[in-house]
């Protein structure tokens, strides 16, 4: 307990940063992921190709490398200057959206083809069909893997510690320099992560219950 109480402001500040990273990246990657999934099921071959290429490349790149690119290589392109926090959000979102995309796509695959065919027969456009018939059903069937993806995102935020974002992953280094027990400190970090994941699992249960009657 001592390690936590003595360094309470450190824990609060760093976990606050973790949550900020998580919130921004979660929203962006959810939107981007759904958009990517739409690309991947689109009838236009070019769109499908772009979506597939993105997912294949990003999903096979270690997150650390994505970070390295945005923190060390991206500045050479001299496009827009990023703060380290922004760079971290971009790296996390780019990475996570590939996973969100595949989760959404697997959901789309669970919707019977007949639904799409029926909506087309009714004269709906592709976007209308996807937006009002397929996606709502797809999203309902992928709650557990989607929550898993976001739990992974929450934990992945710790990678940012090596790139000048002072979040939970950096607590260990700070504790070590302060001469505190890093082992106990890490146990607290792990414990707090469990606490942070709990609302997500709760959300999962609520959504599963509420949406289970949909089909």
């Amino acid at each position: 307990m001592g390690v936590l109480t003595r360094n309470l402001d450190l824990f609060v500040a760093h976990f606050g940063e973790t949550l900020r990273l998580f919130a921004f990246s979660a929203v962006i990657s959810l939107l981007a992921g759904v958009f990517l999934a739409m690309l991947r099921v689109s009838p236009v071959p070019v769109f499908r190709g772009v979506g597939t290429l993105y997912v294949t490349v990003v999903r096979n790149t270690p997150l650390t490398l994505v970070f390295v690119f945005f923190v060390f290589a991206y500045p050479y392109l001299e496009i827009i200057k990023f703060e380290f926090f922004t760079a971290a959000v971009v790296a996390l979102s780019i990475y996570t959206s590939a996973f969100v995309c595949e989760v959404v796509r697997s959901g789309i695959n669970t919707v019977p083809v007949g639904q799409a065919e029926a909506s087309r027969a009714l004269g709906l456009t592709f976007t209308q069909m996807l937006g009002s018939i397929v996606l709502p059903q797809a999203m309902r069937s992928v709650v557990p893997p989607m929550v898993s993806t976001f739990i992974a995102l929450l934990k992945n935020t710790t990678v940012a510690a090596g790139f000048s974002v002072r979040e939970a992953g950096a607590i260990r280094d700070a504790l070590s320099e302060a001469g505190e027990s890093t082992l106990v400190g890490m146990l607290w970090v792990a414990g707090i992560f469990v606490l942070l994941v709990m609302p997500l699992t709760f959300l999962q249960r609520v959504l599963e219950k509420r949406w289970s009657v949909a089909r």
Partner: protein
Amino acid sequence: MRVRALTAVLLAGGLALTACGKEGTGTETGAPAGVFEVAKDVKVDGSPTFEKIKSRGSLVVGVKEDQPGLGFKDPTTNKYTGFDIDMAKLIAAQLGFDPETKIQFKTIQSAAREQAIINGDIDYYVGTYSITAARKEKVSFAGPYYVAGQDLLVKKDNTAITGPDTIKDKKVCSVTGATPAKKLRDDKLVQPDSNVVELQSYSLCVTKLHDGEVDAVSTDDAILKGYAAAEPDKLKVVGKTFSTEKYGIGLAKDDKALRDKINEVLEKSLTDGKWDDIYKNTLGKSGAEGKHPTLEKY
């Protein structure tokens, strides 16, 4: 051109992160012949660590591998060089073990030092390890064998940064969670808060300094001198220290006998000139004078 620079940086950055390669040159170091004379029939009564070393027949010494001039591992030859490495070798020789064949160097990150000593993974640690009250509660220290101070590393042509009071609105890089970064924040030397850049290693900071993305790198002058010595035409150390860091040899807390023995070795090295020989061949190459530390025998 841009693309080529980008590729180079990506590669370098990736390698640095995985610690497969390092920027900065490992200057050829090594104390002159005669410094590491192996002592015979060494006895350290009542030292559990020494008993362990004897039964193993060799030493395991914790060091750093990414600090040119101090503790640096050449990625091509896997050889360790630097001031700290030579200090570790000197101690090994005085404990009766041939530093060329009986030392196994083990790279231990800053954040894992105490734990490595407590676990007994290493016999002692030599790697810019500042003696602090909090650390003394977990491990004990022989020394100090070097007294450093926080300083600033800047590009050679930088005239705007002349000391700690000239970096207020500059970007200053240090290592994640480390004391120098904390001091920059706590003493409000750099404003705003986000201008303190924290990366995983000083090599990465130096890369960023070369790129002009940060204006200075801040940590102990010993470490900075190592980088300046590797690229003296591009980098310089400002030379106005604003803290005092006493580097000690970290060892197990309950091992007073070994601590006394190492203190004795260090004391002798200060009087018989071996300390100066080691300094001259490593950090001394930066051109800065080496000041003798005063041993603390607590």
